[in-house]
């Protein structure tokens, strides 16, 4: 659910820039009103169902039971959940790094691979997790990564580990694995698209001069698609911050991700105030990603690339 939102944003940013250049062709005053009328329904929906609840939730985070201003909810959030906040950042950051590595490897092979059959199979395979919802990914990992789960059975069967050293990975590792498995294809999709649209001459020139493929990938291809990679990673970062199902299914115990704590405050204590405060704190984390994204999107529009 949350994975499709950001991808739409990704496409709309550059096209929004080019649309802004077109209106003069319409001419006159009326079309401007018409344009306004056209976007109004969308604006109202966004305002009513997104901005207003967001503001209410932000206000709720600072409001005591008697309606006065207070910071007590933030005190409590930091007192009880600062460890989970750090854990959330660490997990999401680590996942983002791993996603980058996996996506570069897959997209790189799709662009530079020389065995057409292997490229075709990989191209067909890598997209599958894109269509699996997070909750299903969590559910699959629950049996796959358990101590006596499929992964360990395979490893033991292949003689790679001893049965006695098999351990459950249903902790932070499970969450990271689920995130990388689910989000890497998304970034790969963006990255492979960007790599495919590069001028082939650069690559061929480098290959003719004797550069190995990994040098071509790192020195020639990657610098040209850096922007796309960054956007994909930022969107993944923000998406992962908001996922509740995966940590809930894999490891709802401490330390856990902040989304689980938000759900827990509401479900167990009907405590919307602290939940709101926690949401605002995770919004701050997401804002870091948003700042990156905006800076880059603006740069792209300005340079026209």
């Amino acid at each position: 659910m949350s994975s499709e939102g950001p991808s739409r944003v990704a496409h709309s940013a550059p096209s929004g820039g080019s649309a802004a250049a077109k209106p003069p062709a319409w001419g006159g005053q009326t079309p401007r009103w018409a344009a306004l009328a056209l976007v109004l329904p969308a604006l109202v929906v966004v305002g009513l169902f997104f901005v207003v609840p967001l503001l209410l939730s932000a206000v709720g985070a600072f409001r005591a039971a008697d309606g006065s201003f207070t910071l007590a909810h933030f005190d409590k959030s930091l007192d009880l959940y600062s460890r989970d906040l750090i854990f959330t950042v660490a997990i999401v950051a680590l996942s983002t790094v791993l996603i980058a590595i996996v996506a570069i490897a897959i997209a790189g092979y799709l662009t530079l691979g020389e065995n057409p059959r292997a490229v075709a199979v990989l191209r067909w395979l890598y997209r599958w997790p894109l269509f699996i919802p997070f909750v299903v990914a969590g559910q699959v990992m629950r049996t796959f990564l358990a101590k006596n789960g499929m992964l360990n059975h395979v490893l033991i069967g292949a003689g790679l580990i001893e049965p006695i050293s098999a351990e459950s990975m249903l902790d932070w590792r499970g969450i990271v694995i689920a995130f990388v498995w689910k989000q890497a294809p998304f970034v790969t999709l963006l990255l492979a698209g960007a790599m495919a649209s590069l001028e082939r001459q650069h690559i061929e020139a480098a290959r003719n001069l004797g550069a190995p493929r990994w040098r071509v990938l790192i020195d020639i291809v990657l610098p040209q698609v850096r922007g796309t990679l960054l956007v994909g990673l930022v969107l993944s970062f923000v998406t992962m911050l908001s996922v509740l199902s995966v940590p809930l299914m894999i490891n709802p115990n401490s330390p856990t991700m902040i989304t689980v704590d938000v759900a827990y405050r509401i479900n167990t204590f009907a405590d919307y105030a602290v939940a709101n405060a926690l949401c605002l704190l995770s919004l701050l984390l997401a804002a870091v990603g948003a700042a990156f994204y905006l800076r880059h999107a603006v740069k792209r529009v300005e340079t026209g690339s």
Partner: protein
Amino acid sequence: MKARMLLLSIAVLGVAAAFPAAAQTTLNVVSAGDQNMVDYVNNYLGPKFEQMNPGVKVRAVGTGPGDSGSQKIYEKLSAQQKAGTATWDVDVAVVHQRGAATMVDEKLLMPYRNDVAAGKLVSRDTATNALGANVDGYVLPMFHSQIAFAYNPDVVKTPPKNFTELSDWVKKNPKQFGYNGVKGGMSGVGFVMGWVNANSGLGDKLEKGPYDPAAKATIEKSLAGLKDFNQYVVMTPGNAGTLDMLNRGEIAMGPVWVDMFYTWMADGKMNPKVKLSLPSPGLPGQPMYYVIPAKAANAAMAKKFIDFAESPEVQADGIVKQFNWYPGIDPQYVQSKMEPAAWNKLFTDISPADLSKNGRPFPLSQYFTDIVEGYERVVLK
């Protein structure tokens, strides 16, 4: 001409088909709890009631497991109360104790126990008292459920009889006991309640009150022991997660809901060797309550529905035999309606005597909050 006749007859048929639907009463049953609660109404109770009352359609909706399920029902009713709606669209709700206490307190419910015949069949104090709140007259227990230790007798020859023995056992057998913390479902929460009850020395006070905020320190002291205990145990992902891990042989013991355990057993999802035991001084259990919202659209039909659901026949066949819950009404009325074998199945591992001695209610709401928050503060930090 022929075509017109055809159209007309189609129209007549259409009206005839639509009419009974319009004359039907739809009884909206909204249930908190796991999916098996919704299944119980949709697959068992609803069809039987519809058969006995032509023209009535029972529609059951689930709001999710745990207290959050009841919280959603509370929020819905509360919103309708605040909006001043004349009739509310929930006729029968099935809620947890905490939810019932809040709803009675905010006048969201209608007293009905004296209006239904089955109201006289209840005997446990849960019919009048929900975690210290007086709910007399507003609720009837649908069933009682209980948390107990499930253990694999191949690994655990004699299960620990109390929490001290358990602590010794986990130190000798690290990572063989698993529970689901306080954020992963009520069987874990219940274990924590049992731990505090056993180790704080507060005993009955937690369940009967009066509430004393100063007890917080005592509670947190007993939770410090749990932090140490946690180093030797495995954290499981949820109520079902504990049963899963027992099944896969990843843990040898853990707290589970008895009804869930028996249902898995009956479905063949559970290692048949696994047994139950109830340690001293006890683990909590809880009823689910049938309640009627204060402005239910079909209150009369709702009472009839609950009366039927609480009848000894339904309690025997539906609640005990098919869904493996302990009865909501006094067991003596239920036992006589059942074959001894089916009745005894429920008490194979935990005798009725153990159940009445070590099956405890959850602590009062305020203590409950103190304990789970204390767990976050002392054990998790």
